[in-house]
């Protein structure tokens, strides 16, 4: 019971964390992308469609990366090159991706749905580690995407805090005009962050279809892109914090399924609302955006 719950928490946390880590890069560069949901949906749909018709999970994952990058490229063109309002653009990108995936899903798979299943991504138990009681199945018996995601946590922490590239990234989010004067290339760096984020978010979507649901339903992401946005806030723009927040929210989701099955007095909706409510509490408690990059959300345009 506990083992199943914890394993499920890690599984639920993975796509959220993957997308949140991408968003962290983007926000460090000074851009806020509230259209994560769109890239995630696109990744989820393309991964399923390609994996279903080609029979190859690898091709599906590659397709998801391409789809996430393509969605973020639309966003980047408007937001980075044309300096358009980031919030409204992000919303539009979400709506567009929701529509496109819905339309093409119906086109490819008709109106039924559940029948179009794919095999889940294979699990890779990590040898003897996977045989440790409780910890083994919870932490060391997952598919490659889960390991990849959790390895990204220290990797991104190191890159952002301790490398030249990370410093430059933060410089763009702190004061873009000064970064520009130092020849750091704000536009290029923001594009890079958005492309990497698109790839990670696309993979997060692929996780939903190829590793979790093994099929696609409309709006399968069900707000996880927005949970990723909260994870960045609750995690205080620190990849370790992001991991902790993701696991917490993942556990809330896992618990909710258990409760729904058990039919307890505690309404399961409380757990579904938890990430959002907690974000509000954290924001209200910390008094705004003190930990956020200074130039977050401000369009930057050279004269």
């Amino acid at each position, binding site marked *: 019971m506990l083992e199943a719950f914890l394993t499920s928490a890690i599984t639920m946390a993975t796509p959220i964390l993957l997308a949140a880590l991408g968003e962290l890069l983007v926000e460090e560069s000074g851009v*806020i992308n*509230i259209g994560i949901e769109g890239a995630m949906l696109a990744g989820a749909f393309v991964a399923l469609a390609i994996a279903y018709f080609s029979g190859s999970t690898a091709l599906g994952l590659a397709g998801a990366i391409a789809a996430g990058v393509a969605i973020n490229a*639309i966003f980047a063109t*408007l937001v980075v*090159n*044309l*300096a*358009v*309002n980031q*919030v*409204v*653009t992000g*919303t*539009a*990108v*979400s*709506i*567009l*991706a*929701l*529509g*496109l*995936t*819905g*339309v*093409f899903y*119906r*086109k490819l798979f008709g109106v039924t749905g559940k029948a179009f299943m794919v095999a889940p991504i294979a699990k890779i138990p990590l040898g003897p580690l996977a045989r440790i009681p409780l910890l083994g199945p919870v932490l060391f018996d997952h598919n490659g995407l889960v390991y990849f995601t959790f390895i990204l946590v220290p990797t991104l922490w190191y890159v952002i805090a301790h490398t030249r590239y990370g410093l430059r990234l933060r410089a763009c989010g702190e004061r873009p*005009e000064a970064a520009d004067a130092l020849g750091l290339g704000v536009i290029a760096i923001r594009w890079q962050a958005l492309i990497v984020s698109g790839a990670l978010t696309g993979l997060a979507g692929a996780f939903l279809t190829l590793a979790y649901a093994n099929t696609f339903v*409309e709006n399968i992401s069900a*707000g996880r892109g*927005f949970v990723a*946005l*909260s994870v960045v*806030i609750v995690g205080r723009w620190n990849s370790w914090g992001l991991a902790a927040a993701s696991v917490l929210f993942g556990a809330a989701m896992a618990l909710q399924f258990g409760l729904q099955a058990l039919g307890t007095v505690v*309404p399961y*909706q*409380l757990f*579904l*609302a938890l*990430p*959002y*409510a907690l*974000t*509000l509490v954290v*924001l*209200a408690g910390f*008094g*705004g*955006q003190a930990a956020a990059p200074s130039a977050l*959300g*401000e*369009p*930057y*345009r*050279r*004269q």
Partner: protein
Amino acid sequence: MLSSIAKPFAALALAAALISIVLAALGASPIGVFAALGEGAFGSWYACADTIVKSTPLVFTGLAVSLAFSGALWNIGADGQLTIGAIAAGAIGPHLGNFPHAIAIAIILAAGALGGAVWGGVAGWLRARRDVNEVISTIMLNFVAVQALSWVVHGPLMEPSRAYPTSSPIARAAQLEFYFAPSRINLGMILALALAAACYLLLFRTGAGFELRAMGRNRRAATFFGIRIPALTLWVMALSGALAGLGGAVQISAISHRLYEKLSPGWGFEAIAVALVARLNPLGIIPAAILFGALDNGSQAMQRTQGVSPELVQVIQGLVILIILAFDTPAWGGLRENIFGAPHDAAAVPPLAEMPDA
């Protein structure tokens, strides 16, 4: 640089071209699809009437969004505000059986407006007092509202037989009647029209509206001239929420008569497209809402005859917003008026020391 006359046409042409590409990829004929959309939305008297009905919530949420956006308050939460308004209306509605019709209607609509105002007001308060970005808070409040609705229809407000996740129907007295049955045209649209006019007057004919627009265009200058930004923020967000909540109450009172999960198909987000097409002008909200309401209404016919699923409407919404934004950006030229004013476009103005006096 595109001239201001050529631009709307270029934007329209681009939108049509992109939608046609999507349709071609779907193997559908663009002309057939647009014809089916038009036929479904305006092909008969009943279709026209239903377009009006489908547009009504969009007028409310469109007004909510345009009012907030005019003050540079990015209210992404009209959907949640509408939902809370609907919950308030759906909760009080069944208990209004003993009231006269007019009073019952007034109470149910007031409840909806109040619910929305509280939801918008929370975001306004967080922004004004705790410096919490309203974008994030309204997004979060949307999801909390969705879960709240799910909870009430499974829990406290669930209908007595407890077979379906819906609330009990509201009392007959609290229902807005259909004037032209079998069409569902009701008082809601009249109310929406009146509110659009009221919002226009508020925004362009009152001191408070001027302060709101000044805050939207240049928050720093507004602060300098003693416009009380925190108080204004709170009131605008509450008012914006009230408009959206009223839309929810009208939907309950006139159309659905009860609460159920996923009440809103995304009216609060569609409202952003509506508001941008209207260039944030409350009077423009009406035709813009009818345009998008028509798309919604026509999409069923499009699916029947052309085999294109109704999600195409969302593709169109998304593309329309993106194209308007792309064509409206100051990146195309020097300083000029755009939808959002120039709060961030100070960079377009040369630094002070470099401005010779011409």
